């Protein structure tokens, strides 16, 4: 079945049934998940997936209907339903669908070889990384499992304003989790690699090493006294800051005045060392796609430029409402959801400092390696989280720390960044280098 044609015909059906505008978002693909434990396959899941979401506007009123069932009856019923439900929602002049974009980037995001690789080879990658991790150190007592996953598929977006686009995308990943244990204390450590191309995955050796290093470094972590201290965020923990920013630059949160950044456009919100980019066009980027989830072309955007907030991110609705244009950031949680707003590849640009030097300059502080829970409150900018890491004394990493909280206000944090590392690494779509915050509050004993 030609799914692009199906999407187009569904959008037309909605118009015929009385919609003023209609959009069909059809997604079809395949997924594979392999879990290995103690040298043997523990589970394997494989399936094809498809679904379509119809968004219709009837004279400015919106409704949405979706189905995983592609029989004629089911599809006719959701088209009917979408049109009839739309008559019951509120009129909103900003309920609009985007027009086709003139220029659409074609990032390289589909690896046709992934599906050609034999199942046995994928299984052996998972087995290998687990084997390597278990052998690395005598304190690594057991495996929590290793896995290999891949997902690929095609997205079709057709709307009644002429948007008609399809693209293919693939993502594969593998990783391992182990437990370090000494007497009664256990510490898990995990690491993974994910990439759009199979040959861009990291080696099992590297993944095993980083998983083991994490577990060993944090084993036996204890709390410290409550105090104010300098905090160095490693690349994993630092992402927590980015997640908080993502919610605050969401155009919808901004016009609802539910963002702590709402009044800060073109104002400095962070240290000059911080530049943050959102870019959906990066070749091989895990967050890349040629168009967003409404069919608007993605592009590279500077969100924060040397500390100054330059823009918010929008989908078509929120942009119309705010008197601006969509930034190509419409995001769905799959075919069955209405487009919201989200980042593509979202990262803090590299700074100039060696990560080792960032630590060397700290007399007394925390090197945070993982956060747990909490995060940034997008409404008021308060940051609070559980934290784990290593204490830094006279420029050296020393004892493991755990069972503490880290808190602060995000403006203080962002303005207090006084060093940014040159070690930016993408292992997903959100990334940052190592960075240091002059002062935060640690809640401990």
């Amino acid at each position, binding site marked *: 079945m030609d799914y692009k044609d199906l999407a187009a015909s569904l959008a037309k059906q909605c118009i015929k049934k009385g919609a003023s505008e209609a959009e069909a978002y059809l*997604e079809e693909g395949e*997924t594979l998940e392999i*879990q290995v*434990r103690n040298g043997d396959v523990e*589970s*394997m*899941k*494989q*399936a094809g*997936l498809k679904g379509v979401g119809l968004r219709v506007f009837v004279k400015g009123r*919106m*409704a949405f*209907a979706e*189905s*995983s*069932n592609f*029989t004629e*009856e089911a599809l*006719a*019923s*959701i088209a*009917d339903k979408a*049109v009839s*439900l739309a008559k*019951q929602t509120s009129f909103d002049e900003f309920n609009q669908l985007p027009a086709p974009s003139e220029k659409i980037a074609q990032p390289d995001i589909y690896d046709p070889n992934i599906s050609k690789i034999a199942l046995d080879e994928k299984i052996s990658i998972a087995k290998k990384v687990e084997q390597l991790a278990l052998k690395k150190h005598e304190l690594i007592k057991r495996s*929590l*499992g*290793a896995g290999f996953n891949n*997902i690929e598929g095609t997205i079709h977006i057709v709307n009644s304003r002429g948007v008609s686009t399809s693209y293919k995308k693939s993502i594969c*990943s593998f990783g391992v*989790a182990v*437990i370090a244990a000494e007497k009664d204390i256990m*510490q*898990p450590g*995990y690491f993974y690699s*994910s990439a759009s191309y199979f040959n861009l995955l990291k080696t099992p050796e590297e993944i095993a090493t980083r998983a083991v290093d994490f577990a060993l470094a944090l084993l036996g972590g204890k709390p410290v006294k409550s*105090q104010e201290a300098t905090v160095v965020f490693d690349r994993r923990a630092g992402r927590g800051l980015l997640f908080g920013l993502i919610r605050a630059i969401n155009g919808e949160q901004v016009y*609802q*005045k*539910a963002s702590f950044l709402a009044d800060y456009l073109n104002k400095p919100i962070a240290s000059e060392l911080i530049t943050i980019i959102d870019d959906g066009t990066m070749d091989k980027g*895990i*967050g890349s796609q040629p168009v967003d989830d409404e069919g608007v072309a993605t592009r590279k955007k500077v969100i924060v430029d040397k500390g100054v907030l330059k823009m918010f991110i929008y989908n078509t609705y929120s942009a119309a409402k705010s008197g601006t244009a969509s930034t190509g950031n419409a995001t*769905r949680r*799959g075919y*069955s*959801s*209405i487009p919201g707003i989200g980042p593509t590849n979202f990262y803090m640009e590299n700074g100039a400092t060696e990560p080792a030097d960032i630590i060397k300059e700290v007399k007394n502080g925390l090197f945070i390696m993982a956060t747990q*829970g*909490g995060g940034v409150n997008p*409404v*008021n900018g308060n940051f*609070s989280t*559980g934290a784990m890491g290593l204490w830094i004394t006279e420029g050296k990493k020393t004892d493991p720390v*755990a*069972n503490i909280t*880290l*808190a602060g206000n995000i403006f203080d944090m962002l303005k207090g960044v006084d060093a940014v590392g040159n070690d930016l690494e993408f292992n*997903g779509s959100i990334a940052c280098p190592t960075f240091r915050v002059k002062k935060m*509050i640690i*809640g401990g004993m």
Partner: protein
Amino acid sequence: MAKKNLWQIPLSRRSFIGKGLKGGALLIATPSIMSDFFLMNRERAIAEIASATLAKEEIEKLLKVALAKGGEFSEIYVENRQSTSINMEEAKIKSVHYGISQGVGIRVIKGNKTGYAYSDDFIFGKLEEAAKVASYIAAGEMKTEEPISISKKKMPSYVKVQIPLESIVEEKKLNLVRKADAAARSYDKRILQAYIQYYDEIRGRVIANSQGLWVENKLPLLWFVVRALSSHEGKNHMGRKRLSEHSGFEFFQKYKVEEAAQEAAREAIAMLDAQEAPAGEMPVVIANAWGGVLVHEAVGHGMEADGVYRKSTIYADKIGKKVATPPVTLIDDGTLPNYRGTTDFDDEGTPGSRTVLVEKGILKGYMHDLLSAKLLKMEPTGNGRRESFRYYPIPRMTNTFMDNGPHTAEEIIKATKKGIFVQSLSGGSVNPATGQFNFDVREAYMIEDGKKTYPVRDATLIGRGFEVLENIDMVANDLGFGVGICGKGQAAEVTAGQPTIRIARNIKVGGTRA
């Protein structure tokens, strides 16, 4: 309530198909066939769609194909879900969302291995293929198990329905949403925004396995959430109230949406006066009901039996040992009538049960699915759950709570010289290997000299589950439950409950005042 699930390799947040898989569970809309748009033949078509299922012979054939490579257990899981969701924001009905999700999941178990495949096509050829794919997990074994002929089994019913959701027209649902919106906004002029979400679904399941089990049921689920955002002189707070049960529409006679809206608004206004929370260790009194997230995170996940056979939880090999103070009794009960976590039988066909996890401080049992029960040589407890046909089941909680104790909430506060009183939480997470948990506080007040004083904002509470359990020194008699969504690589509908309790030490507040 997301659990850090370290043994599942996380896919990128942009794994769109993965999101499609999650999205499959958020389907909405009962086939509100009373809508006057529908013609008679459409109604029949929808009824057919709604009941897409498999005949006995088809199920038995698939069970057999799944075992052809030598598995010892096979299972067919058929799911039909139709749902409706209504969202109101900025005083407008933003959208109404209707969804259909149907499919078949086929599982094979051999030893400790699981093979799983699913199809959203009810075409027999495709299902046979899926059964073959699932069977590969057992490849290489010689013996083949013969599936037992399936026969229908009657199951207990803890979910009573008076007014079926299918009989409710959309307008009624829209009115509830509008009423809640008006109630939230009119509470106080400092309420800036109100967000109302209505969701209902009817989930039909047919479960059959090679041991001859064949069960089915259809359950309605309702979920209603009001969030209210207050704003005043640069300060703001989002208050929240959630309601949910497996129930018919009589739910809205039992729970008034206006009251829920006013509760959300009350919290939002009360917290405008919130000061910075202190940082450090101090006694914490946690109010009843949704405070039960503590139990869920700090302890519950650690007692799910998959962590036990993997030895990745601190509660492995501790049956019979003391894990908490004597006032602490923890129970997971899938039989509580109409509760959000009650589904009559789990997603493997095991009837729900009342499982005592900890009794007067002693660890008594775990929560099992069929696989963990088999591997640990214990009895299944009805905790094998899955988010949808796109997942195989794993041990999950249902309605998890700490039982009543001897004190009253007032006594507990009075007995606390200095500490923090937590009225409500927004969620939390746990690392079962270390016991490290956190939960995010929504509404809290300082306790000074045995009295609740000023509100404090935005603190994270952290601790280690076993340390907290060993330091609960007062438990009240006001057991209440809150409703939520638990995440463990896949979502599950749950409740969490507790009476008001005091944790005397070893719990830390992550405020900004050191």
